[in-house]
């Protein structure tokens, strides 16, 4: 009995020493991570707002309601309003096909879905120029029918759809795979048709994951620079999105206006993060 107590005592003190080391290590790691985040993410973010508001609130708002800036904001909203729903619908379809059915070429399809992430956005933009540009494969046909895609809004929307496609699918596949097909089969045996099964069983089960994917997709759609830059042609008031407009203003040494417009994107990012963590919190609760 005595020896047992002694070892027990010895053990607890050893645990204490170990836990003190652990806590030092823990705070050291947290500190380094915080310092890094502060230096590389928080400071630049603050810089954006401080630069934007440096010459006063009036100039800040003036930069935002200036016609060209306003046109860029509208174009960005239109682009997202088209690209996000399309990617949501096709994302759900693709995720459903991949997660719930077995078919040949499934892995090939998965690889295809990942291409927009793997390829540089500039190349994505170039692909569209090569396809639809005046020297491109479909150029003569489009010119004949007076359809403008490159250096116009359709090109910007196409490039944005391409770049943001994987967000919704990638978010949904693991959730749908995890849930399997049992509930859908149960719904069918209970007499539900395909639509009823989708809207009453499948969709409610994936809604938080879907929302998460949509938010990320939207953030990227509004913030995309590379691919859009290649296809847009940078026509002020016509084919400039917010990121492109920021670049133009910056290149013209109009820093206050550049940062003011940029602050919109930063705000969008912050809003995205808030909604994202709310959704995450909701998902965990379910």
């Amino acid at each position, binding site marked *: 009995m005595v020896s047992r107590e002694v070892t027990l005592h010895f053990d607890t003190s050893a645990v204490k020493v170990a836990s003190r080391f652990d806590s030092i290590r823990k705070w050291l790691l947290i500190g380094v991570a915080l310092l890094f985040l502060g230096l590389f993410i928080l400071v630049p973010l603050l810089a954006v707002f401080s630069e934007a508001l440096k010459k006063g609130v009036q100039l800040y708002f003036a930069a935002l309601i200036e016609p060209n800036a306003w046109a860029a904001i509208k174009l960005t909203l239109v682009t997202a309003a088209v690209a996000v729903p399309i990617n949501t619908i096709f994302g759900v379809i693709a995720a459903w096909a991949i997660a719930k059915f077995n078919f040949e070429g499934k892995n090939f399809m998965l690889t295809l879905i990942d291409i927009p992430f793997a390829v540089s956005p500039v190349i994505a933009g170039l692909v569209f120029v090569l396809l639809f540009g005046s020297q491109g494969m479909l150029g003569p046909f489009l010119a004949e029918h007076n359809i403008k895609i490159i250096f116009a809004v359709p090109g910007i929307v196409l490039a944005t759809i391409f770049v943001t496609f994987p967000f919704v699918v990638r978010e949904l596949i693991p959730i749908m795979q995890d849930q399997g097909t049992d*509930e859908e089969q149960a719904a069918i*045996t209970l007499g539900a048709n395909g639509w009823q099964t989708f809207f*009453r069983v499948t969709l409610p*089960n994936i809604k938080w994951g879907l929302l998460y994917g949509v938010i990320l997709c939207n953030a990227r759609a509004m913030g995309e620079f590379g691919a859009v830059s290649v296809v847009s042609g940078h026509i002020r008031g016509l084919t400039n999105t917010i990121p492109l407009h920021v670049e133009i203003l910056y290149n013209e040494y109009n820093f206050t206006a550049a940062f003011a417009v940029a602050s919109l994107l930063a705000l969008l990012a912050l809003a995205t993060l808030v909604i994202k963590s709310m959704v995450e919190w909701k998902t965990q609760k379910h």
Partner: protein
Amino acid sequence: MGISICDVSKAFSSFPAVKNVELEIPTGDFVALLGPSGSGKTTLLRMIAGLESLDSGKILFNGLDYTNKTVKERKVGFVFQHYALFRHMTIFENVAFGLKVRPRRNRPSKREIKEKVHELLRLVQLEHLVDRYPSQLSGGQRQRIALARALAVEPEVLLLDEPFGALDAKVRQELRHWLREIHQKLNITTVFVTHDQEEALEMADTIVVMNKGMVEQIGSPEEVYHHPANAFVYSFLGRVNEITGKALSETTLRVTDLEKGTVGYIRPHEIVLKKTSEGLGMLVEVVHIHSVGSTVRMQLKRRDTDDLYEAELTIETYKELGAVSKGDLLHAEFNNIVVFENEPGTSHSLQEQTKFTAAFN
């Protein structure tokens, strides 16, 4: 509703899951599809439900060809192995689902749905859980809700896939009795899949023993247990000792025409143990003794051939035998050795079963 399964086959890519199955299920019957995993029993059940297509053959419901009918048209109740309750719906909504998705013209009113759901929840004795979510229920409760949900659409056939497979032993025992009662009350044709022979023997009116996609035997629990069609059925329906070669010909001295490689079988509880020889029996050494509740199991080693056997005694016969410990020598009598003329797997047709009584002199 009576179900006829006529020469049904199904293969997954190149793996044959179900091969030429013939089965007749009369209205109101309680049928167990019994077999080891991979024997095709679940595939057969899913084909009856319409969840799986057939490669060949026909499925008739009340004599009408239902082979190409959709799941919806078949009006079957299906209970899934892992319950498959809708996790985002309350228990009420789960049970009401089948009624709420009906087309408007034959959908019951809200009040009727509410009454029906409560009636079903009373039947499964879980009315108090009406507002809970599936995640708040125990496994046994979920299974009962799954059954209530399947019964809500008033199916004429109830199909259950390993209904109690994921539950612990005690709950399983309770639910078996309870499901039998429900079957008696509602008298719906019921087919369930199980790999547990005890479950099948205890619950079913008819047992269909399956192996490698084929039906080995169809019969009442009585028939399949006491008159197994072949060695597979015999060994699947309980513990068994195999006696081969020399050992067999010695124990069955009267049989002279035993072919080489024939296997004899005897159930552990059919081995009779005595302390003193009465002319019959062979000398065995006790290797291990362990008691499981009301029975005692013994590992025995035959003295002259080193063959190992398992014997099972009730606690009473064990006491009658007197104190036995590891290493003791006993006389074992093999009274009911069963020999099948064909080995398992060579044929699935019913075979004449030959019984021998060992005689030792």
